[in-house]
């Protein structure tokens, strides 16, 4: 199956030689026994990543400016979109921003309250349930968290503002 992809694929492929080159450079400063493994791998990978990059640039050129990549569908549940790629990217950014805001809240008020608020707002505005349904879901989330952390003695990130258990 063919799909049209923006050149982010090439950008990712171009990052790899840089990463592996850094791997080589950094490993040179290590003691012999710590160096030998990362040095040899990153050296081989650097060369392979360059070959891959050259191949992909060639493929892009032959496809007259549009990158056509063939799915590696046998290996993975690959993404196939029935919406335009621009829409995929914008939705992705929205969800990523959502996670970043969640992290910010965890940092300030701690994990349990933040994730509960996250569930409530998600249910209200993404799942589009009513407020009652959203609050029930939020309470279920917090209840699950309190139960599991007590039963399995698990811990959660504390916030800057310390709240009483099970809120913080």
């Amino acid at each position, binding site marked *: 199956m063919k799909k049209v992809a923006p050149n982010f694929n090439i950008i990712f492929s171009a990052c790899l030689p840089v990463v592996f080159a850094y791997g080589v450079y950094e490993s040179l400063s290590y003691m012999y026994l*710590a160096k030998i493994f990362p040095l040899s791998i990153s050296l081989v990978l650097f060369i392979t990543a360059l070959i891959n990059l050259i191949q992909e640039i060639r493929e892009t050129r032959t496809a007259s400016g549009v990158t056509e990549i*063939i*799915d590696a569908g046998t290996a993975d*549940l690959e993404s196939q979109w029935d919406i335009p790629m621009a829409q995929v990217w914008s939705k992705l950014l929205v969800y990523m921003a959502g996670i970043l805001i969640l992290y910010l809240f965890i940092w300030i008020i701690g994990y349990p309250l933040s*994730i509960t608020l996250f569930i409530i707002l998600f249910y209200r505005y*993404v799942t589009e349930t009513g407020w009652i349904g959203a609050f029930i879901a939020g309470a279920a989330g917090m209840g699950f968290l309190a139960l599991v952390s007590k039963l399995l003695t698990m811990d959660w990130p504390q916030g800057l503002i310390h709240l009483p258990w099970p809120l913080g």
Partner: protein
Amino acid sequence: MELFFQTLGVVLSPPHFVMLIAGVLMGLAIGILPGLGGIVGMTILLPVIYGMEVHSAFALLIGMVAVIPTSDTFPSVMMGIPGSSASQATIMDGYPLAKKGEAARALGAAFTASLIGGLFGATVLTIIIPIARPIVLVFASPELFMLALLGMSMVGVLSGQNPIKGFLAAGIGLMLGALGDAPAVPEYRYTFGFDYLMDGVPLVIVGLGLFAIPEIVDLLIKGRSISKVATLGKGWLDGVKDALNHKLIILRCSVIGVIVGFLPGLGGSVVDWIAYGHIVQTSKDRENFGKGDIRGVIAPESANNAKEGGGLIPTFLFGIPGSGSMAVFLGGLLILGIQPGPSMVTENVDLIYTAIWSLALANVFGAGLSILLSKPITRLTIIPFSYLAPFLVLIITFASYQASRNWGDLIALLFMGILGWIMKQYGWPRPAALIGYVLSDNLETYLFISVQRYGFSWLARPGVLALALIILASVTMGIFYQKKKSPGS
């Protein structure tokens, strides 16, 4: 033999049995959720097994992973959406059958095939262990290093359509595994000045970041509609009879499943297609395939359950995972303080037997529960993903934080999630990266011991030379085969 049956007693004792059933129930649930498969399920359980009694942890982990290919059939048949990557081929004939009102028949046949396939995998594992024992024991560090290298090369060549990408993906995993403290000397590598990275990135973070986050984000972006759900209908017994009438198909496809499970790099995502392709090619009357031929359901379902038994063979005997979920299982073994590899067959045979019994019993319970609970489970499959997503975010972030109870866990999870999404989007095989990550430590340790103990003369050992030849042959054949295949495709 005595030990073999003694272990059954251990598995059936209440604390272990409860764990096994808990694993089975969790596996059934994860199988039903679209997109989430064995890798994510195993990874979520890793924080739970810290400090757990080893036999119980085995029952939990194996109980879970054994039944995912059983229950993932529900969304494949009822909605035409794969419950996990191992049930994609089941859609080909399962969904048309459901549309004809024969969903119960398709599911009955699928669960019977799954059960027999799973038991076949467990049987092969039982037979292989005593046979392989003398062979495994002659393997020393140099040979184990070469075997791990063989595993890596096969992962690279087999796991994607482009061997270079497969190889690089495995390499990304190796480098991720090399982060943090070196095994032989007090040196911290690639830490970028962060204390968090001194211990390396934990397996839970790599597994959940690479596999769970991209799946959740993609399912949310797609926002799948649920309008196409079929009704169960009747015909459970017909389905069971269909499966039993096609015993030879089940047997053949179970063999395929075990072999695919055994080979590193070929995981759940291809086993169903290989079995489906095999059955279409070897059948004389193939006009009904794709339109609702019951054989098209039986073949992939027997193969995908049999692969777990096959996958456990290299994992236990050599410490080389056959698939992504086995890679996580391998990490789980290390958490429990068990070193997989040749010592397994001398010191921990009872654990292998626990795994075998758990695998067999889980398959029986998984198939039984799937039939008994088919009505409520069918209702579960129609829950829109956006109802589940925030709870999955909760479970994933909470599980990740248990890895080292540090903010770094959450940040690393986000980075791994972005990496996983990009890899998924552009066809870089993520299972290869996961297997590379898990093997990284072993590879380095085996190499270090080989050099320390034998100098460079380890390269001249006959076993090493033989394995080097096999690696060379497999890579050459793999690249040749891919080149031959690619111009026309």
